[in-house]
């Protein structure tokens, strides 16, 4: 048994949440406790597995480890093959942490828990699948699985907002209730799927260019593709995956989506799912199409820089707390894309580490926003003030998350951003670093500004009667995430070493292939 577990750890990680979801579906709807326990166990097993994988990953050996493979569609060379590299290890851990805390944070959910947890867990196994799958096609499959449950999760359990109609397209408002949860859910789903349509085309291109025999990533990675293909396929992958990573201008699903989504979903979506996008750009786009990556890097980086500043400034202009955090995610994902675009060791390390750090940071943020909303029954910042009097701990945690997001040393966010900036400066376009750094400052302005107007100043007005600090299970989530932020901020090598190994394996290949292609076709 233990041997089996050891041999198939990755499958276990992917399957555990799914199994839990099935069990939850079979449980009676009124037995809320059992449902919660089951889902927690599912998530927790996955987390343990992730930690185990991290612990047993052989850093001397490096490369892909714990490989498993089962043919799925042999006629087309589609295998259900799993393995982890240094990146996968760290992102598995992230996902584990986020889902466990997410489940904890949504223990207080009231309506239709059964379906909620089932969908949530399904989504998570999709995410795990993406991070471990070594078959481009299966990668895509899990990607879709991870994206889709979002529709119901937001549409059913989401919260409503309203946006008054104005601007050049005001006439559109008569058809959609912008800000409504169903609108948000639909917009999110459709935009992300448009992305995957683009991805699909690119994938087919790659597959057939590589001989149309196998989707295995290693096989595809060792093929050298004609320059033409690389040049048209890469942007498809970039924008396709990018739409999930919130790449400007395909980011607009994210504010509405995150604002409308229930706590755990926002945590998971901003914390992990947006990473899938960036991960896809690097893992598929850049590793398979180095020449394309090299050719398009200026665009990727340029847009990423726009993301950073644009997201930060948009966040600054928001009144709704959730929108602020959502836009901040857009901005921070810009940092990830920037790191990717640098095509340097530090940049890539930074990018992956930023995924990790931002995942936990934004997870913490959304957990807190959920708590605040649950207590204050409003998300409009100007209505708040002086909350720290009644919820000092929440204020503390919020400040901590904010500090991490503005890149305060000692917290995870700093390491990532710093690495990315270093990479940017070493890259072919050093000036990317400047707006990046400025973005960090703007973040400081709006995050701490928000913290001030929510928590500080004259005490909370009368009609906020049930403000109070976290309750039982909520504590666990907050503490866990904050502890992670500090731990990985002060001792980054816990994760960064793994990331570094993978980067060092992949990046040279990209550089070489790009080089030789460049000399072959001047």
């Amino acid at each position: 048994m233990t041997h089996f577990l050891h041999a198939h750890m990755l499958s276990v990680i992917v399957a555990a949440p799914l199994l839990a979801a099935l069990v939850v579906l079979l449980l009676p709807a009124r037995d809320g406790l059992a449902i919660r326990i089951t889902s927690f166990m599912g998530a927790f097993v996955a987390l343990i597995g992730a930690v185990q994988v991290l612990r047993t990953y052989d850093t001397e050996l490096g490369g892909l480890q714990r490989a498993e493979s089962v043919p799925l569609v042999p006629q087309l060379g589609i295998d259900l093959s799993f393995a982890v590299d240094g990146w996968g290890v760290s992102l598995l851990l992230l996902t584990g942490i986020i889902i466990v805390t997410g489940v904890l944070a949504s223990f207080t959910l009231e309506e239709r828990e059964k379906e909620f947890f089932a969908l949530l867990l399904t989504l998570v196994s999709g995410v795990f699948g993406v991070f471990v799958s070594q078959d481009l096609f299966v990668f895509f499959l899990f990607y879709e699985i991870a994206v889709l449950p979002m529709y119901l999760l937001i549409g059913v359990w989401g919260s409503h907002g309203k946006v008054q109609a104005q601007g050049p397209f005001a006439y559109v408002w008569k058809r959609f209730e912008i800000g409504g949860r169903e609108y948000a859910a639909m917009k999110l789903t459709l935009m992300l799927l448009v992305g995957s349509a683009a991805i699909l085309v690119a994938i087919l291109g790659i597959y057939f260019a590589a001989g149309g025999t196998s989707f295995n990533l290693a096989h595809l990675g060792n093929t050298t593709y004609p320059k033409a293909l690389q040049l048209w396929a890469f942007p498809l992958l970039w924008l396709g995956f990018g739409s999930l990573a919130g790449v400007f201008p395909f980011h607009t699903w994210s504010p509405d989506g995150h604002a409308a989504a229930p706590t755990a979903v926002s945590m998971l979506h901003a914390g992990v799912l947006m990473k899938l996008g960036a991960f896809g750009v690097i893992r598929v786009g850049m590793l398979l199409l180095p020449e394309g990556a090299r050719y398009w890097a200026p665009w990727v980086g340029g847009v990423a820089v726009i993301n950073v500043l644009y997201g930060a400034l948009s966040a600054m202009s928001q009144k709704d707390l959730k929108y602020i955090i959502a836009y901040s995610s857009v901005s921070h994902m810009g940092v990830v894309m920037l790191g990717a675009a640098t095509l340097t060791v530090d940049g890539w390390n930074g990018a992956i580490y930023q995924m990790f750090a931002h995942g936990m940071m934004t997870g913490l943020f959304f957990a807190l926003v959920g708590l605040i909303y649950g207590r204050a029954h409003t998300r409009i910042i100007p209505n708040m003030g002086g909350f720290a009097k009644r919820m000092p701990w929440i204020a503390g945690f919020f400040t901590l998350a904010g500090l991490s997001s503005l890149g305060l040393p000692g917290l995870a966010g700093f390491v990532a951003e710093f690495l990315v900036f270093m990479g940017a400066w070493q890259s072919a376009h050093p000036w990317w670093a400047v707006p990046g750094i400025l973005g960090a400052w703007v973040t400081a302005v709006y995050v701490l500004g928000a913290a001030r107007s929510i928590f500080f100043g004259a005490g909370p007005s009368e009609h906020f009667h049930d403000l109070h600090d976290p309750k039982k299970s909520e504590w666990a989530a907050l503490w866990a995430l904050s502890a992670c932020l500090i731990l990985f901020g002060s001792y980054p090598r816990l994760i960064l070493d793994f990331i570094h190994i993978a980067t060092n394996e992949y990046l040279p290949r990209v550089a070489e292939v790009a080089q030789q292609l460049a000399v072959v076709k001047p």
Partner: protein
Amino acid sequence: MSAIDLALIATFGPLGTALFLLLLPGLRRAGKAAGVISVGSAIIALGSALQLALRALETPELGRVTVQWLPHAQLGVASAAESAIQVGVHLDGLSVSMLVVVCFVAFCVQVFSLGYMAHEPPADFGRYFMWHSLFLFAMNTLVIAPNLLQLFLGWELVGLVSYLLIGYYWQKPSAARAALKAFWMTKLADMGLVAALIVLFKNTGGFEWTAHPQVAGVAGTVTLLLFLAVMGKSAQFPLHVWLPDAMEGPTPVSALLHAATMVAAGVFLVARAHPLFEQAPSTQLVMAYVGGFTALFAACIAVVQNDIKKVLAYSTCSQLGYMVCALGSGSQVAGFFHLTTHAFFKAMLFLAAGGLIHAVHSNDIRDMGGLFSRMKITAGAFIIGSLALAGVPGFSGFFSKDLILEEVFARGLYLPGIALLLAAFLTAFYMGRVVLIALFGEPSSHAAHAHESGVSMTFPLILLAVPAIGAGYYGATLSGLYGEPVHFHVSPIGMVATAMGLSGLGMAYFMFGAPKGGAALRTAFAPVGRFIALGLVDKAFLNGYRYGLRGLASGIGWFDRYVIDGLINALGYGTLEAGARLRPLQTGKVQDYIYAMAIAMIALGTAAAFLR
């Protein structure tokens, strides 16, 4: 116990305390106990610092240990072994003496706080001391840094603690705002430090401050960027505006962070990175002028302040200007020496001022008056501090300021030099003014039942008074720790400076102290005062934020919601609309359907028949 261990104790002891207080809310909320623990850790830190100092007197280079913090390898090199991204401990005369200063002042301030904050609710009291311990950790991290990276880590952390402590009274909107302002301004400046780091790293593959062969090319850039950070942290014009607002924090905090240690970190950084700055004469020139101007400018503003803490704050700006100017003149010895002496007497001044405020429950010097008779020790300390600040011979300030002026003029930086001289005059003048009004002026209603404060608040003053007076006499020994030992000698510049100082005091006496005060003079200077009091720089920043940044932000927010998002919605709307518009095609009459078929059939057939 090795030097490294001592340094680590001095650094992580306080951190331990802070975490201890953080994780044991019960203990923290107990208040007093928390304070005691924190002071205890401060004592330990101070002890190990002094121990280090004694060792340093024999051999300044006490050693260096580094560990890898982040893996880094150039492309293609598989192993993360040869890494340049390190943290650790670096102990030499400079760091040790800074360590001593920090720990000593911190200790005094914490002791003082025990009394000063006694009336706070226990929970807040505990929080206060938690932050203090955290500060000690952060500051020491900065001080013992082996490279600019770790220095930056500490740098940011002290900034954080400053934010937390300024915002100690977070329920006061003004305090919350001040904390935010301080953080934003310094953070903005710190971006320069980050940039400097990445530039440095690209060229030297490390964050060392030692003169690296490849640094030559970028020395100018790097140092300028570093200096940007210094301007923020050490409140140099025009980034000084946060410091006066920082006085919203409790007075001991102002004494520790915003007078003695944290704001001096900038000076420490430059002294630390001296090898780099030496390679960038242009930067040094900029520093000299900025420092000189700041010294004069801040002194001018200090003259018209009635809030005793504001006066001290501006004087801090001005004194930091001195140090920066000194560093700009290329003598980190003079600058750093002034840092040490200033730390002592300015801390003492603040604490004393705190005592006075505590007594009259007001910051306004006009509410004080005649306090000298009521609280001798505090007032005495205040007077000593003022004299030291005014550079009256015999007090520590005299020696260091003198040294600076010599160096500056020796470098032929006459303009800054003259600015410093004028600043010296003004310094003496406004300190005299404060002393005369607050301590000897006619008592106000508040001051009526003021009384000497308790031992916990007087003892630190006495403790600080010793170096405030005596530090100057050991100039040689002290400066020996971190550079060429300087031996005091009477110099013409020194004479002029002294003269300026004394005349300043005299003028102050003539205007405020003399029985029949020079009302005429006061009225004569009034418009100048009013102009200065406008605080134009501050307003400029405020408007820049409000209308520049916020305006841009709301513009972009609108654009995103109504244009970018609008476009995407319009796309969806268009599709739905198309569907709705097409519906009438389906008339429901079967013959119309056959029309469609017939047309298609004929079209196909025609194509087949004729397109060949």
